[in-house]
């Protein structure tokens, strides 16, 4: 690509190229490919009909003198999860459900709020307008009481109707950033060039509407934290490692950031790496990008990129690089519980190296942030650690 700044010489990317070749071979075999159902986006009229059917069921229930209830798949139980290495976490077809009853003091309020948001979604679709979850909350903030209630109900509705959130005309404000070798056209025709510079581009709110994506990137690096992302931008990491793309979800990624990563993978099939803290929460965030979260497992096929690899910071790196102990942080009880919970997850058996790293973390009883590398040198991360990892295939 003409605009791409000069990066390392071609041989630098040998290991990456080999990795990409293996990924492409895997894609050809069918693994790592998005399943058919993921491409099916219901039309607006279909969603409207689904909502009308729900209302109709409630009316019929009342006409029978029965208290109506919503039946929603239980999104918070590992028992309802199934794992396929190619797709990540998914809900079982016959999963357990929970009832949101209108005749229970515990749930009558939620029952009413689901109906309220369903009616708001109905109007949004009819008028072909979009609203953020925040917009919906502020429409009736007294009624909803808090944003989390709205977020949870929207996910429940999405799960109940089995349609992506965007089909509900509910969008979330993107918090993620993107930088590097990428250009695309937004839904409204705006051309976006994510140049390698000190500033990053916000992840678009309509990923589905991104068109004409172009890149020469050899890899996509997902950076857990905004601070590290900004530091890498300041160190001209994208130029030094050009051509590449960097993305951050600023912690736990929002839907749009995950959709973007998924879209970039589906479009370019370039290696995707994660740079996260060497702690249980960093690993958790990486898992969300790779295999999805339990609460959004009903939409995993649109969100997960199982080919993601763990580039750093590996717990083994802490020992290998002789990071001094005073740069490390003791694992808290909460950290240990989180680590145990990750180790019990179905996908860990597919990743013996991950398991080993996590056991190392547990044994050391200490964790390290990415910034711990600055003990060695302020630009150690961008100049030494990451280039070496990328050059010599230091991912797992």
């Amino acid at each position, binding site marked *: 690509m003409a605009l791409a700044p000069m990066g390392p010489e071609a041989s630098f990317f040998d290991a990456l190229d080999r990795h990409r070749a293996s990924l492409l071979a895997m894609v050809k075999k069918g693994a790592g490919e998005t399943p058919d159902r993921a491409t099916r986006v219901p039309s607006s009229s279909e969603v409207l009909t689904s909502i*009308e059917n729900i*209302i109709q069921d409630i009316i019929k229930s009342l006409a029978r*003198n*029965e*208290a109506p209830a919503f039946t929603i798949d239980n999104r918070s139980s590992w028992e309802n999860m199934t794992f396929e290495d190619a797709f990540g976490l998914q809900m079982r077809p016959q999963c357990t459900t929970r009832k949101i009853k209108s005749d229970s003091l515990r749930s009558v309020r939620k029952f009413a*709020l689901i109906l309220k948001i369903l*009616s708001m979604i*109905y109007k949004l679709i009819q008028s072909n307008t979009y609203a953020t979850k925040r917009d919906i909350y502020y429409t009736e903030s007294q009624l909803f009481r808090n944003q989390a209630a709205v977020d949870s109900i929207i996910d429940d509705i999405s799960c109940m109707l089995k349609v992506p959130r965007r089909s509900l005309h509910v969008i979330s404000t993107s918090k993620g950033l993107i930088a590097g070798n990428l250009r695309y056209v937004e839904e409204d025709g705006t051309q976006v060039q994510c140049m390698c510079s000190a500033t990053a581009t916000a992840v678009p709110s309509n990923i589905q509407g991104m068109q004409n994506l172009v890149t020469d990137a050899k890899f996509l690096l997902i950076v857990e934290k905004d601070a590290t992302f900004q530091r890498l931008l300041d160190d001209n990491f994208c130029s030094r490692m050009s051509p590449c793309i960097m993305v951050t979800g600023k912690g736990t990624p929002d839907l749009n950031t995950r959709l973007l990563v998924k879209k970039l993978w589906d479009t370019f099939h370039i290696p995707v790496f994660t740079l996260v803290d060497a702690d249980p929460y960093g690993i958790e965030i990486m898992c969300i990008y790779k295999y999805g979260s339990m609460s959004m497992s009903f939409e995993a096929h649109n969100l997960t990129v199982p080919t993601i690899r763990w580039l750093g910071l590996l717990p083994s790196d802490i020992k290998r690089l002789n990071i001094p102990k005073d740069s490390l942080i003791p694992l808290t009880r909460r950290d240990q519980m989180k680590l145990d919970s990750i180790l019990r997850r179905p996908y860990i058996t597919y990743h013996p190296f991950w398991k080993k790293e996590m056991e190392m973390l547990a044994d050391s009883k200490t964790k390290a942030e990415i910034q711990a590398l600055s003990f060695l040198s302020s630009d150690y991360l961008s100049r030494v650690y990451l280039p070496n990892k990328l050059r010599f295939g230091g991912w797992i």
Partner: protein
Amino acid sequence: MERTALAVCEILRYLIIHWKCEAGIPKGALLDGQLAISIEALPSKHLPDSLRCIITIASAGNVDGGLDFKKLLQDIQPALPRLSAKLTLASEEGGHSQDTSVKAPCQMTFEVDENSRSLMTDCLVIKHFLRKIIIVHHKLKFNFSVTVNGILSAEIFGAENEPVLRLSNGISLAVGFQHYVSSKPQFNWTEPHCSRLHPVLGHPAPLSIPGAKANMGLLGELTLTPAAALCPSPKGFSSQLNRISSPYIFLYGPLGLPLVASDQEQPSTAVFRDASYFIDWKKHNLFMLPNLDLNLDTQFILPDVNYKVELPEENQSQNAQGPVLLLFLFVDFQSGVPVHQGEIWGLHTLLTTHLSTILSESRSTVQDSIQSAVDQVLELHHQAAKTHQRLQASLSVAVTSIMSVLTGSTSSSFRKTCLQALEAVDTQEFSAKLHRIFYDITQHQFLNHCSCDTEQHLTPEKKISAQNTKDQHKNIGLEFPAESSGQAENKRLKRSSPNQGREESRTLGPARDLSPPESVTRDCDPTEASLTARGSQTQVANDGVQAADAASPLGGLEDLWLQEVSNLSEWLSPGHRS
């Protein structure tokens, strides 16, 4: 109180004390028997415009005779200073009772001259006294007949086979609302209500007897135990948001006998003239004034003390009245040794004249005990009302949302299906029906979760009470025949009772503060009595010990109810999230 009425009440009280003490009936057990009170009035030959009244009191049933009549005369005379008539045993001078159906091992008579107005008042006062007795001694039955110039009027007073709540202080309280308030039109009965009271028992407050009166030779402790309840009891999560309309206070002495008769001039109630003396109403945003306007001519039990709620000016236009707060104050004597008849009688006499002084001496403990019972009842009422408001708000949101989709839909088939389902011709009618059906169904479901006829709260007073309860259940099961008797049934009317053929017994222990009390249990339509005790934990009075009932299986309904209470707490908690 009229002298004749006072005499009758005192004699009845004496007889009941005698039976209870001399027949060796255990303290917790109920008296089972029948008493007949007949008044025969004919024009007086001695005084113009007066009636010569022959008053006969006779007993029957399992009442042991053995009454020492001379002792009765000796004991009772000081209590009847204004009665000049001579009390005689019927066996001495022949009976005058008109009620020949009663086989009377004991029958006594006295004669007085009364004008007709006084006689009427006497009759009303006696009736109220009987009503006060039967709500605590529901196995006692009173035949009360009056014959004036040959015209007979008779009533039977009894509460046998009616639902009762057995309190841990040994008192069994009739909990049918019909004893206490009218069903209409005073209250807003369109709201669901429970046909029973759900009293909260306060912890016993020890009373100290003033020095000069203390020398009665009593070995033990005088205590006051309050029990509070709303009547009618809002059922489930009723919308009865109204403030309580008025508190009724009933005073009982040892053995659960009325402490004072319905006479507002009795000095024993003087201490209650200040409505805030024992109860801080302000914390519930209530302002109380004594209500002296009591009408004797009523079918319901008259309170010994009655307050009325002074409403703020802005609320004075409210017509609907809230429930009545019933407050039963049981003064009793706790002793490790049997208390003799004379001591009980003496105690009654003492309390009748010095109750105000005694309660004032222990104001702080009495205040604490009464306040905690009142607070619990009012707090539950308040919480139920708040919960109902939230339920209503949720249903309103649901209905509005459905209407929004329906009216905004461009699908004629969808609209048609919905309208047809509720048999509505247009969206306006649909909206009205939707709201009503939604409310009815959900309210019905909530009420189905409430049951009190199979609920039994065991006294927290540990195993002794548990054993007593078991024994009492057994006794009741054996002793209660399948017959009915209503309260104040008039012989001229067909005998019937809404509680016919129904038995129930529950036990309630004292609860401090806001432990889950008995009062939260609700009943819709009790059917067959369940005499099994249930395991429950209720906070104990003074020692804070929690005792589970070892004698009772857990019922599923209890779990359901506890779940609802838990839901309610969660719902009302500030950090509640859906």
